[in-house]
């Protein structure tokens, strides 16, 4: 699988999801996959976008097409999940995949995926908020409307670490990481967690600065939806 093709396809797929969220036509995963020059990179892209492919179903209650389910299942068959993660990247991937599999199971009524190990293994201690928040950003696909689970619980218990992390990334002008963290922040806000920053003002600061990368625009669209629903 070619990494740059996979990333490019993921951007394309995220753009389709974003279009669906904005009221356009469905993301249509099967059609997306057919459009990919390299099906392997396309399936990798589905895994990379992960749980976010289900956003139109979560947010707009759009019906899930059986062909979409097939594509997600195929993406897991093509690249099997990490069952015993050792490195940080493997741990991030394990949680990322868990979120995808769990949402899929929720939408199809299948048996939920097994939960990975203790989230502190991937996040580290919140006292080290700088590193912790970068790990939280890597798990941004877990911060979707209605999200629950061990990672959500850990992040929700550390609003200050999260907010310090986002303030740091905004001041570094790393708006890609900032948009992923803002998504978490808005999830906490929607859940009624008191935050030391204003999530709406934060979104307003990041949106015009984040650029055009569809995956990051998707993060912000989710964040916008979360504050709208709060």
């Amino acid at each position, binding site marked *: *699988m070619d*990494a740059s093709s*996979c*990333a490019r396809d*993921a951007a394309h797929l995220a753009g389709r999801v974003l279009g669906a969220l904005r009221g356009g036509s469905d993301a249509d995963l*099967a059609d997306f*996959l*057919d459009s*990919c020059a390299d*099906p*392997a990179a*396309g*399936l*990798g892209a589905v*895994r*990379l976008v*992960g749980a976010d492919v289900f956003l139109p179903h979560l947010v707009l209650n759009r019906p899930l097409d059986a*062909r979409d389910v*097939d*594509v997600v299942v*195929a993406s897991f*068959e*093509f*690249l*099997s999940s*990490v069952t015993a993660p050792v*490195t*940080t*990247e*493997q741990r*991030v*991937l394990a949680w*990322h995949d868990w979120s995808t599999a769990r949402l899929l199971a929720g939408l199809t009524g299948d048996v939920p995926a097994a939960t990975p190990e203790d989230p502190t293994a991937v996040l580290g201690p919140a006292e080290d908020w700088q590193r912790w928040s*970068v790990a939280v*950003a*890597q798990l941004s696909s877990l911060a979707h409307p209605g999200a629950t689970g061990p990672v959500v619980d850990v992040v929700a218990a550390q609003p200050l670490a999260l907010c310090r992390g986002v303030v740091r*990334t905004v*001041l*570094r*002008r*790393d708006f*890609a*990481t900032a948009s992923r963290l803002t998504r978490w922040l808005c999830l906490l806000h929607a859940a009624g967690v008191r935050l030391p920053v204003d999530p709406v003002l934060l979104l307003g600061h990041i949106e015009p600065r984040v650029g055009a990368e569809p995956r990051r625009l998707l993060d912000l669209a989710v964040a916008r939806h979360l504050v709208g629903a709060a």
Partner: protein
Amino acid sequence: MAAHTGIRPVVAPADIAQLGRLVAEPEPALADPPLPEPNAAGILLLLLSPPTPKEPRK
């Protein structure tokens, strides 16, 4: 028929590692924080600024 049906499960440690790297995207090493620069200091806009003083008449 969708192309994905032709893809068979494979054991591909290198591909999984690549996917892991894409998912766990690190933050950029180079930051661009606010630093001292002339244009950041703001421009004093005094609409009624006094004119440059003239030399007093002898």
